[in-house]
């Protein structure tokens, strides 16, 4: 019997440690596991941000279900001024259209966008395809396969939009992340992938086009989709900070100022340079408008590609 009592006491202890929380303490939710691409940017962002804000902060990784579990936790903390989320593009602008979630694009107070990287259309360097035109021609006979880091992710959506808006014939094969997809590309299981410059450089791939309005610095020979005679397609991997709805105007302003100061700091700049993340700051109002625009555009793509009714 004593054994049972000790165990119950231990259980009670766990409960007690969870309920204690200070007011000058900020929870930064990262909706991915520790060590992922988003987590690393968030962890470099966190110390500078909390110093500017004058609080003690903790990065909490709440992962699962395409980053929606952590995002939902932020949305569900309505009115709590001690929690923010460091969010990826997919969880804010794609997932709410794909499935029933406890949040939507209107469930947040938007603080700022931190970084944004345009996506490239790319093929393996070992393939003999040199241009988008050639890719389309060769796909007519036998459709290509394109990979993605999972269903409903940005690489998936960008390619789905491209196949809808051009004559390219290609089918989707999802993988559990960019790594396994790159393995498949190296083994010629898939032939096409849309992803950022980081992937392009790390895996030595050949870019054919860029999903952006203008050509990208450092890649002067890579045409935009519009230059190829296609509709405008703007896909970028971005990240930003959101807070729950119902926090005070004053607190929003504090967050926004701290965020701006953080992304403009030398420390964050030098990190972003190393991690090949392009700093692309947007303030609260611009960020909100941006997310709403992306949300609507992605919703249309999902519909056109037949991924949602």
């Amino acid at each position, binding site marked *: 019997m*004593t054994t049972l009592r000790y165990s119950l006491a231990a259980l009670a202890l766990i409960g007690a440690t969870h309920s204690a929380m200070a007011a000058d303490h900020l929870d930064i939710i990262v909706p991915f596991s*520790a060590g992922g691409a988003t987590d*690393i940017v968030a962890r470099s962002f966190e110390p500078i941000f909390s110093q500017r804000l004058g609080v003690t902060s903790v990065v909490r990784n709440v*992962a699962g279900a395409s980053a929606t579990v952590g995002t939902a936790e932020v949305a569900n903390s309505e009115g709590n001024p001690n929690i923010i989320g460091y969010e990826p593009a997919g969880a804010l602008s794609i997932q709410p259209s794909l499935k029933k979630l406890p949040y939507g694009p209107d469930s947040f107070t938007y603080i700022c966008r931190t970084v944004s990287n345009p996506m490239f259309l790319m093929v393996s360097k070992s393939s003999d395809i040199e241009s988008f035109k050639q890719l389309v021609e060769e796909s007519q006979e036998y459709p290509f396969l394109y990979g993605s880091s999972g269903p409903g992710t940005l690489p998936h959506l960008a390619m789905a939009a491209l196949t809808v808006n051009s004559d390219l014939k290609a089918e989707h094969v999802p*993988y559990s992340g960019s790594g396994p997809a790159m393995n498949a590309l190296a083994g010629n299981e898939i032939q096409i992938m849309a992803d950022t410059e980081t992937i392009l450089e790390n895996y*030595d791939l050949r870019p054919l086009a860029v999903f952006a309005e203008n050509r990208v610095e450092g890649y002067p020979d890579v045409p935009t989709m519009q230059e190829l005679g296609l509709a405008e397609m703007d896909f970028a991997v971005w990240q930003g900070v959101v807070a729950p709805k119902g926090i005070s105007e004053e607190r929003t302003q504090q967050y926004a100022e701290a965020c701006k100061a953080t992304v403009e700091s030398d420390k964050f700049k030098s990190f972003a340079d190393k991690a090949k993340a392009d700093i692309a700051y947007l303030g609260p109002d611009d960020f909100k408008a941006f997310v709403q625009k992306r949300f609507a555009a992605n919703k249309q793509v999902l519909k056109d590609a037949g991924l949602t009714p």
Partner: protein
Amino acid sequence: MDMILAAMGDAFTWQALLAIVIGTWAGIIIGGLPGLGSVVGLTIFLPFTFGMDVITSMALLIGVYCGSVYGGSITAILINTPGTPQSAATTFDGYPMTQQGRVDEALGWATFASFFGGVLSCVLLIFCAPQLAKFAVNFGSIEVFALVCLAMLCIVGISRGSLLKGLVCGMMGFFFSTVGSDPITGADRFTFGTYALSSGLDLIPVVVGAFALSEVFVRFSARDEEATTIPEARLRFPNLREIGRRLIELVRGSFIGSFVGALPGTGAAAAAFISYAAAQKLSPRRANLGKGEPDGIIASESSNNAVTGSAFIPTLALGIPGDVVTAMMMGAMVIHGITPGVRLMVDQAQTVYALFVVLIIVNVAMLVLSKPSIGLFRYLFKLPLGFVMGGIVMFSFIGAVSVRGNPLDLVVAALTGILAYVLRRGGYPLAPLVIGMVLGPALESSLRRGLLISRGDFLSFFTHSGIAATLFVLIGLFLVWTTMAGVLDWRAKIAARREPVSPSSSRA
């Protein structure tokens, strides 16, 4: 040569060596505590590395990683509770040996096999990383599907006793793994409209419930004091003659671990089960497996520690992380301005060589630190049983929830614990449940991806590539062999029944 000397210089700084000692020791302890595994250990230590230089931070993380994979075996052997999922297969023979009073021998073999597997995979990593990476790239979805099929077939044999009960548990594990988002379409499955379930059931909470919590329940309910006492942890290394006798087992386990670790998306838990299944078919002492045979411990521990080295093969050669843990390491490298990728070995050769040196030192450190770590566990387990069990419950829940910060995982761990207790009472083996959860997702997504690639034509799987064809032939041979063995066994039984029964055997 200059490069290697320079790399040695990088690795043999006092900061790096201190980081190795701290990391490895902490890793062993974290791995040994049920629920806290490699991922939790690395998450704890990752923030500390931000201020260190790249070699020191890698040394710390590699130490935690290798240490935790080894540490899981300590509790697996002592109290039938694997500290990490990677050590689940170690319980098969480790715990029976403990019950027979051979704790020192079991821990000795686990330690030596871990060291051997770790070092052998380092050697492979140093000398054949580019070649192995190239070979691993040829393992596409269809090849992985064939490999997982073969592994699952072999593993069916792991469930001792009733085959049917083993299959029931295996299917249950497989079913658990299908809860959550569909890997191909992203749609929610088996969530019953509950949003919390859409992230699926994670492996760690299930393993914690199935092994750690159910063990606590079993010990609570045992009336007999004898059954609930934990034997004193001691360590006795095998001598050279014993090692020589089992060298082939050590080498086989290490090679299987190195190979499986180099494939993306598999990991150390799968490697340990596959290696155990291989031992079951090939070990000269296979009849004793599951009853306290060191070969079983060797199969499991040499292969799961071999994964620690070989998981770096795709990471360093191609920039493709082999599992969650190497993905975290890649993240840590990015923070220090090293971007893993196809050119890493050329651009950052000195850093890569220093990492190799670090990996080897970590394995040596593991061997040296095994004694004090086991001493610590001996001290911990000398506490009154209530404290030990309470501690296990506490760490189990902490581990279950800290993997991804989802409170649902606490409920999952608790319910799995109760379910597992009921299953154990009914004589159902729990290992197949974990195997189903480990291999199920790999089987499902590789099959469905394979079908997407072959445009829905399953027959073309068999002719897809040489590797796939070979694996399917092996599967065919295995089926024929098992059926033949079964028929022969059945015939022998019939024949035995016809024999006149002697009075002495009828009682047994």
